């Protein structure tokens, strides 16, 4: 029996070890390629570079203007996060606290909106934005990103608000707070972990988006990070070094954020998007 348990343990660690290696290898390859000289990337690929260089990063930032792309991404993702948190938190509060007649229908429509894919909406949205004169601008991008961020954050926040005890709010209102005051002073502060998780989900959703940006943004100065990298591979020569440098710059901050906030994220997942 003891032997069997030991074998089980060895099997478990062996499988998990292989899985972790497969998960880590692309991350490793991304970082290592971004630090290699062209000759080492193309002619003598190896697991460990002979010479480490920051040339790829320099090239990406100086020649390709990638810093502007990153800045655009930061502006768009932050704006989307702030707007959707504001709009969706009052909506989610209403859904959770009031038993209005159309609550079920509205909840369902929000879910429909959440599951309506961008691939269906990108054509009409590009026509709509062109008509609103927002075609080639970051404002337009912020607006269309609300299509996926609003339903998701409303849905997730409902899960968090539901866990705030109603009695606390009622006590606050007896003490003279209005409904809105109770939301701002009591419910929101108690939901900070949830708001943080939703903010991260929303931010990353906007940060990662490619298709809508590809369709809407035509000028080089308004390109976001994914767009900048996308146009690196549609050129004739494929610059793997700078490309992987861009991949590192646009993913490491987010991966660190996820790592730090992991507990919130998993709870968020359990509380909202997937309820069992």
């Amino acid at each position, binding site marked *: 029996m003891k032997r069997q348990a030991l074998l089980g343990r060895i099997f478990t*660690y062996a*499988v*998990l070890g292989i899985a*972790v290696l*497969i*998960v880590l290898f*692309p991350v490793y*390859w991304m970082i290592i*390629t971004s630090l290699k000289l062209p000759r080492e990337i*193309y002619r003598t*690929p190896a*697991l460990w570079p002979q010479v480490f260089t920051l040339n790829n990063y320099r090239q990406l930032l100086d020649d390709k203007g990638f810093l502007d792309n990153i800045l655009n991404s930061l502006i768009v993702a932050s704006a989307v996060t702030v707007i959707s948190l504001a*709009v969706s938190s*009052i909506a989610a*509060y*209403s859904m959770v*606290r*009031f038993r*209005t007649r159309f609550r079920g229908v509205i909840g*369902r*429509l929000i*879910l429909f*909106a959440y*599951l*309506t*894919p*961008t*691939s*269906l*909406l*990108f*054509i*009409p*949205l590009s026509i*709509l934005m062109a008509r609103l004169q927002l075609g080639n601008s970051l404002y337009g991008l912020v607006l269309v990103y609300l299509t996926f961020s609003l*339903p998701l954050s409303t849905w997730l926040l409902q*899960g968090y608000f539901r866990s705030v005890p*109603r009695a606390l709010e*009622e006590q606050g*209102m007896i003490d003279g707070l209005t*409904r809105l005051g109770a939301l701002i002073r009591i419910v929101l502060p108690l939901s900070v972990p949830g708001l943080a998780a939703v903010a991260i989900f929303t931010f*990353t959703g906007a*940060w990662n988006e*490619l*298709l809508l940006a590809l369709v809407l943004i035509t000028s080089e100065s308004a390109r976001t990070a994914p767009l900048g*990298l*996308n146009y690196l*591979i549609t050129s004739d020569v494929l610059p*793997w070094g700078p*490309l*992987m440098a861009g*991949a590192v710059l*646009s993913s490491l901050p*987010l*991966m660190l954020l*996820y790592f730090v906030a992991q507990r919130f994220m998993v709870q968020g*997942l359990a509380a909202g998007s*997937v*309820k*069992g």
Partner: protein
Amino acid sequence: MSAARAIFGSSETRFAYTLLLPVSILLAGLVAYPFGYAIYVSFTDRVVGNDGQWIGLGNFHYLAQSPAFWAAIQNTVVLVVASDVLKLAIGLGLALLVNQRLPGRGLLRSALMLPWAMPAFVAFLVWRVIYQPIGGGLNLLLTASGIWPEVVDWLGQRSTAMPAVIAASVWRGFPFWFVSILAALQNIPLELYEAARVDGASAWQRFWAVTWPSIRPVVIVTTLLSSIWTANSFENVWLLTQGGPSDATIVFPVLAYFGMQTQRIGEAAAVSVAMLPVLAILVFAGTTMMQRGEDE
């Protein structure tokens, strides 16, 4: 009767709807209206610069005769089914292993979640580099270890392009399954397992009697969500192969984007609308399951 209701009476209902107003207006303008508009445009011969005319099913007739469209149907089905099955198997298997009392378990869990934290566009660009015949990591590993001595152009030939796209999609997508299933596993009361063990149930019987019934709702919702997302994923195919070689990996969203690029808006809209019937079933099932989960 809550204190709040006693204080606010029926003005409360008005307040409740007021709070829902911004989200309703934005979603009506940015989701519902474009949704209807996409369907309308798919019945016109709209091109860039010309709003076009109603041509009934003309675009759909045209698509039905286009080999690329049939290739997109086939590839999308293959991509969705293969990725779902693999992600379920890998996600469930790893979640069961990590759910044991193991030293280093938190670290393992974090490491396995990593692809989820990586932006999709980054993940698929990295895989594109890994698959390269020149400078790619996969060929290096296979030739250096002697597993496969020849250099393979994974994304460049029809036979390997689709499996390569699926493998990269599974790599990026399995953590969502892993995390969801793991969360469900951790909610199962240990007493249930104890009771099953006392009754003399084998590990296999315990899985089917205790584990599976507890995680089944999560698995169903995850399958529905993942199918919807995979059927509509653009980045994986676009960044890896752009649908090539010769339509071997073309999928609906990429085909629609190509239509848009060639400025034939009506046809492009018809491509994305063509998948609506199947999508509608998945979305309807998904929302029903998610609302039911919420009410419990």
